[in-house]
């Protein structure tokens, strides 16, 4: 790996984003709007937003970053620039790390804005410190980035990439523990949910909401980070210098 080439790639990705104001605005503001909508929906029902608000905060960055990353890297595969990059000294790991760093930075900005909005404007209250909520949102967004990078390897068109969302993201939301506590699920589904990273992300958010410290928070967070790292490694293995 080469730091120069990794940072050059991150810089290039961010520079591309900087030419696309609309995407940046959507990326930074859309999650806040959705959180706001959710808070408004339950404004007459005391306690519901307090119960689910924090978990929603973990979902949106994940979904948004998954979509953005899978489409952007797919564009790179299809435009011929990836083939050209594969003839340069750029390593596959440099390429993946470059993307992960650039979008990780955007994810951090997004998390700061969304958490501030949820707490400052929508009145979300958590027992734990706010920075922990932000940390969970950032790790979730990075997980979305990592899975998006991996998913793009299996999509040939932008249309397919978008279709991956219902396949990769929705089951994780349904089994993540938002709709039904995971220990009340049928046994098989409970076991499956243990192997889905988003379940642990939602556990981590629950820990912050309840003010739990230590392993209750960092255990699930480490699991999410491990999934993200695994997806990044797999994504770099799916890059091929030689193609048919």
């Amino acid at each position, binding site marked *: 790996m080469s730091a120069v080439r990794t940072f*050059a790639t991150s810089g290039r990705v961010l520079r591309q984003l900087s030419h696309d104001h609309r995407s940046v605005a959507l990326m930074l503001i859309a999650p806040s709007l959705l959180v706001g909508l959710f808070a408004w929906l339950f404004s007459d029902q005391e306690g519901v937003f307090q119960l689910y608000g924090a978990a929603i905060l973990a979902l949106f960055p994940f979904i948004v970053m998954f979509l953005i990353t899978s489409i952007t890297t797919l564009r790179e595969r299809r435009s011929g620039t990836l083939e050209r990059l594969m003839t340069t000294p750029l390593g596959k790991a440099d390429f993946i790390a470059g993307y992960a760093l650039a979008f990780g930075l955007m994810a951090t900005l997004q998390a700061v804005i969304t958490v501030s909005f949820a707490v400052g404007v929508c009145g979300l209250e958590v027992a734990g410190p706010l920075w922990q909520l932000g940390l969970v949102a950032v790790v979730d967004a990075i997980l979305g980035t990592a899975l998006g990078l991996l998913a793009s390897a299996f999509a040939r068109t932008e249309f397919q990439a978008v279709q991956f969302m219902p396949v990769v993201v929705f089951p994780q939301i349904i089994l993540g523990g938002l709709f039904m506590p995971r220990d009340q699920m049928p046994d098989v589904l409970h076991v499956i949910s243990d192997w889905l990273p988003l379940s642990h992300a939602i556990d981590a958010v629950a820990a912050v909401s309840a003010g739990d410290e230590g392993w209750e928070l960092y255990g699930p967070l480490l699991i999410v980070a491990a999934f993200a790292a695994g997806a990044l490694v797999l994504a770099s293995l799916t890059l091929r210098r030689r193609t048919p």
Partner: protein
Amino acid sequence: MMNKSDAVTVTDLRVRRGRTEVFDGLDVTIPRGQITGFLGPSGCGKTTLMRAIVGVQKIADGTVTVLGEPAGSRPLRHRVSYDTQAASVYADLTVQQNLRYFARLLGAPASDVDRVIAQVGLRSQRAQTIGSLSGGQENRVSLAVAMLGAPELIVLDEPTVGLDPLLRAELWEVFRGLADAGATLIVSSHVMDEALRCDRLLLMRAGRVIADTTPDALLRDTGADDPDAAFLALVERDAAEDRS
């Protein structure tokens, strides 16, 4: 036969794309320090041969040796440059931003960016995004990327397609300058008058080299007075042999 003075040696190359056999035992040698033209009807295998030489083509069998190393191997990624047929640059970056990124990947000096922008005649467009350029200008940016650093082998897939005659002539002067400075160039084209500007010609048809010649010898052997007619004569002669 491996010869020190050869830039590229292709031995018994077999490539399959899908169900079609593109090459079934192709042998080609390309001398150093010259401009070699790949000519032939579309679908004859020019691009596949170029991709095999730069090491991004999956091959079924055979060897491709470039500058004494296996094609696509790590040491070659600084020494070989490749311009794909469709412009492979980032549409949402400016001319300068594109070239700076590739220059950093190659470890080329920053001054190279201005040099290649001047060489392809895009000095007044350097701050424009690629998306706002014409198709011909976009192709020239892609070509400029291939001239960054000091590549010993430059592989250009139809670099002058869609350009007006004046610009084509200017670019061929640039190519000649690079060859005079010691670089080896491989240029594919289906504009036959460009054939006369090459030092050496490989005429391809249906995955085979039907003539390995020089511009003068091509005209002499076929008795034609322009390259279009000479090429047609050769293709017809080859097709007749297929039938008999």
